[in-house]
């Protein structure tokens, strides 16, 4: 908690205060006193540099031209939402199938998926990179780096999500579906009207888990995408670090800006998060 507080603190300082040696915690001193309440020189300069608002003639009279906001954050948003939606759909279907049906290869597939859960992204990254290079060269008409990274994210978070989804589906008693069937509902209808609403918390948990992990993902986004304007926000932050290695307040502001959505998300969805985390204790 303490480092977070200091980061927030730094993000509100002015440049001159940040570059001082030795560094001071509160920029509140004058030449005579070392701490004076009225003389505090806070500023939002750091945030300004990150967002870079400029006056414009349209409403609402400022446009935000910072690279971070314009390019990187929307990318991250796109990747995170798309991957999470796809993961929820696929994991939901598979979790349901694994939970409710026993078919040939059921346990074999289940074990297989479980085994894959353990493989970290790192191991396959190299091969995935080669694949992306080959795909890029072959110039398929609809291919895009973004498509690739989304598929990669989905594939990476799918095993754990299937596992979690299956757990949630297992917890829903079959009697409900059978009762609906007896009452004349079709199996698919039963699926949608009875099981899905009950599985909502579980699917929500899967969505959140994937969303947060994709948002926070740095390595894959960095290494698998070639064009700079398709990179996610985490890379933007890393880039920022290179440009602003001395301007700590800018880095601090950028950190806060990128981390804030996730914190807010967590604030509102605590329970889902904690449930999902406990299920996926292995991945951490």
């Amino acid at each position, binding site marked *: 908690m303490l*480092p*977070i507080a*200091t980061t927030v603190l730094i993000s509100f300082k002015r440049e001159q205060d*940040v570059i001082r040696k030795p560094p001071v915690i509160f920029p509140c001193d004058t030449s005579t006193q070392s701490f004076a309440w009225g003389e505090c020189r806070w500023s939002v300069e750091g945030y300004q540099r990150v967002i870079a608002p400029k006056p414009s003639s349209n409403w609402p009279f400022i446009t935000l031209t910072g690279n971070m906001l314009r390019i990187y954050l929307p990318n991250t948003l796109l990747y995170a939402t798309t991957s999470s939606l796809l993961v929820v759909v696929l994991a939901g279907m598979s979790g349901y199938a694994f939970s409710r049906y026993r078919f040939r290869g059921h346990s074999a597939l289940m074990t297989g998926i479980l085994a894959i859960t353990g493989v970290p992204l790192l191991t396959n990254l*190299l*091969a995935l990179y080669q694949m992306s290079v080959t795909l890029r060269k072959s110039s398929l008409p609809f291919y895009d780096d973004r498509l690739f990274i989304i*598929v990669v994210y989905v594939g990476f978070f799918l095993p754990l999500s299937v596992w979690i989804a299956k757990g949630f589906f297992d917890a829903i008693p079959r009697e409900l579906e059978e009762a609906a069937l007896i009452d004349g509902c079709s199996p698919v209808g039963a699926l949608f009207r009875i099981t899905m609403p009950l599985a909502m918390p579980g699917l929500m948990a899967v969505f959140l888990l994937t969303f947060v992990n994709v948002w926070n993902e740095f390595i894959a986004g960095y290494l698998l995408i070639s064009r700079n304007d398709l990179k996610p926000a985490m890379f933007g932050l890393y880039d920022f670090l290179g440009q602003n290695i001395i301007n700590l307040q800018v880095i601090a502001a950028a950190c806060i800006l990128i981390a804030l959505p996730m914190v807010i998300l*967590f604030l509102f969805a*605590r329970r889902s998060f904690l449930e999902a985390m406990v299920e996926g204790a292995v991945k*951490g």
Partner: protein
Amino acid sequence: MQKTMPRRAGKGWLRRNYLPFWLILPTVIVLLVVQVYPAVYTVWLSLQERERSGWTFVGSYNFERLFGMGLFGESVGHTIVFLAGYASLTMVLGFIIALLLNRKLRLSGLYITLLFIPWIIADIIAGLVFRLLVVPDYGLLSGILQNPAIFPPDGLSVLTAVPPKPWFGDFPFPPAPAMTFLILASAWRALPFITLLLLAAMQTVPTEIIESSRIDGANGWQVIRHIMIPLMLPTLVVALFSLTLSGMNGVGMVFSLTGGGPGTSTEVLSYMLYTIGWRQLQFGRAAALALLIGVVNWLLIMGTLRVTRVEERSR
């Protein structure tokens, strides 16, 4: 077509019911493409070396060169030091905090969120947060750290300090200050999750046992050692494995905090994978390393699963 969902399924009844097949198919396809094929490809890559025209098969040459690299041994040493410090620090601190929290349970939502912030933010953001504290000359703590009065002989500049002389041969212990800080930052980040895990496990220990042992005269430390820990053992193992896994695979923090340096003193295995594969572009050797890391990971996961399965069966 009548589709039924029986509870007891005979072997042949699903001949005409292909719904589960279609439901699972997309998942299987994606997993094959993203996980299975690259894994096989990595194995293939690790046995090849790139010539001018294409790839040529070189057998175990890549592995030999990998193990022969001085940097490899050093990196393994760094990884071991990092994992040992990170895992033990997090486990001990997490245990202590969980012990303290074992009494009262009411934590407001806001408080939990604040506590969990280190875990929610991305690894590179956490690395940057800590970096802001120790950047030489400008970091908030650098005023204290670089004070010659506290850290002889001339201050401790975390990110650029040279590692001390190793105690045992070439094994990089004691760690460079940068490594120490990396361990601290990683432990800070993992702490909430581990504390939660240990707390949950702690609360499954029946209080009657603890009370009866206290009546028999056991003091606090004995209670912990002989009763709580054995009863919490499966969770402890899971936590430990989870820490080891995340420690081995987590590169983001290295990127933002130390960049592998100073020199190579924080170059853990996963970071070395990046260096060999993307900076030096030696894909064969990088694939060999990736394979190695993957196998170790896989063993750890299987170990964890075995422990949790055994525990479930014995309940």
